[in-house]
């Protein structure tokens, strides 16, 4: 399947946050959205998730306008993972992840729902926490619970709005590596907003570099993330180092 983002324009009040954003994502791809704070990454992700409508432009999935798809069917295509999480106390991890099954159920939980939840918990390596209360967990554990909820939703495309920002190094790497494995194996797709250029270099197949509401460049991470591009977009001097472990960005000023 394919998502086409076509000429998105959006305003917050009188401030034009998206000037013209176009790109496309195929299933099987992990795509990172990069760019400084306020450049429009989150807005783009929210528009693709149909949380609000853009001022102009549209999103097509396999050529079909996303705003014409029934919300429950859309929920089976696109799974959104926000930057900040909301949850209620007195809820177990199992119950929280089950919420991801909403598009597939109305009242009763089936064996299949539980099997999918079990799979999602194992993907995030939190199966032992299933019966724990969500408010008793650490911030990092909780974040993995919410990612498991998105996996339980079984969407074709995952949209992550910097969801790894509050994870420690180990869990950031684990989460991205696991998601990449799921995407490649299930031939699903993922768009993830990231701040860490090294994570983008290592774990994503394609980067879309956004600057001030417009696409600065898009393509393979190694091609797009050059010292010049980093300076133009972030205003930071950087060096690209390559060794036997891969390519790394060292930003220094």
């Amino acid at each position, binding site marked *: 399947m394919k998502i086409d983002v076509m000429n998105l324009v959006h305003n917050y009040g009188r401030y034009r946050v998206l000037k013209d954003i176009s790109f496309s994502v195929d299933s099987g791809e992990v795509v990172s959205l990069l760019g400084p704070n306020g450049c429009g990454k989150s807005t783009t992700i*929210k528009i693709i998730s149909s*949380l609000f409508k853009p001022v102009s432009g549209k999103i097509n999935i396999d050529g079909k306008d996303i705003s014409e798809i029934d919300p429950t069917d859309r929920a089976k295509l696109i799974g959104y993972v926000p930057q900040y999480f909301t949850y209620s106390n007195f809820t*177990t991890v199992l119950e929280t992840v089950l*919420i991801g099954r909403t598009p597939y*159920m109305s009242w009763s939980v089936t064996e299949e729902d*539980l099997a999918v939840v079990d799979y999602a918990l194992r993907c995030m390596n939190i199966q032992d926490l299933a019966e724990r209360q969500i408010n008793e967990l650490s911030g990092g554990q909780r974040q993995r619970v919410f990612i498991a909820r998105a996996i339980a939703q079984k969407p074709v495309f995952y949209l992550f709005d910097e969801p790894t920002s509050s994870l420690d190094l180990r869990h950031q790497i684990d989460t991205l590596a696991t998601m990449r494995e799921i995407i490649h194996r299930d031939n699903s797709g993922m768009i993830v907003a990231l701040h860490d250029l090294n994570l983008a270099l290592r774990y994503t197949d394609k980067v879309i570099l956004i600057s001030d509401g417009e696409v600065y460049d898009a393509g393979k991470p190694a091609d797009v993330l050059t010292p010049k591009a980093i300076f133009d977009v972030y205003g930071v001097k950087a060096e690209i180092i390559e060794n036997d472990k891969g390519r790394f960005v060292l930003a220094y000023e």
Partner: protein
Amino acid sequence: MTDERKMPDEKTMQDKTSINNAYAKMQSRKIAVIVVTVILLILAMIFAAASGSVYIPPSDIIAVLLNSVFPGITDSAVNENTAMILFNLRMPRILLAALAGVCLALAGAVMQALLRNPLVSPFTLGLSSAASFGAAFMIVLGPLVLGALYKSTVYLFGYTLSMNSVLMILSAFVFGWMSVSIIYMLAHSRGTSQSIIILSGVVIGYIFQAGLLAMQYISSDESLRDIVIWLMGGMWGASWQAVIILFPIALICFLLMEMRAWDLNTLSAGDDVAKNLGIDVAKFRIQGLLIVSFGASACLAFTGVIGFVGLMAPHICRMVIGNDNRYLIPCAALAGALILVVSDTLARIVLAPVELPVGIIMYLIGGVFFIYLIVKGRGAGLE
């Protein structure tokens, strides 16, 4: 390192039983809590039917009930007078208390879930103030505007009723429900985020409070007394008509919300995630508020202002049964009924023959029980 990570494979999942067991364990615990609440409610109702100025032994209560359902199956050793007290006085009162508890607790539980805020209840959203204003409005202005009509009687459901109480009930209901409709109109034009709805509710409450104060200020001594009694709330207005009107309302409101209990769970993940999961959040929030406030206004119209149950019954249940609304809603409704039946009965018998306002007992017992739960550590998730 990351390459060594073992990815679970969906197809060859070995150990599915553990999650099924974990889920089954959670659900059976919740069902057990609901069953216990039902038993407690039945016991409380029998206790309430037995106690009062005339003690009726539970065996007689059961005999009378059986006899009314299957006439002639038991020979009625119970005298006519006992049956009369039971049928005409105690049963309507017990049922009114139970129905009011159901509607108010249901409203509280659903409002708290819809708005993801532990502090909302029919009280905080201005509904009680609006209903009070409605009642006071009719008590004070009814006689002036309607004149002789206000003092007349109407014939409804085979009973002769005084026009003034019918009008007061109608007015309280209409204003109570209207407050939520006003919130709807405000929110409709300005987005349906929780904070806008909650703030609108609080502010509308104040506006009706101003109207209520004005009514009290201009009222005669006699109507002031009527207003104060209404504001205290109680089951004084119990009658079979009230029960017959409220029962279907409570049942329908409950079923409508229970059917969408899973969507209430989904809402706990936040508006954005709920939208992404296919819920029309704005529409659901407004529909839900209108449904439960319909039930709550209908009850308040008969009972006057009853606080606490709407706010606390859902909290107490949440601590015991968890936040899955499929179980929390019925549990809260039953617990609301239990709290009101017990409180009303104690209010009748503690200082008999003097009757206390039900609030005095309920706020005390409920408050102490809530503190007990917190001290026992069940409130750990409240922060």
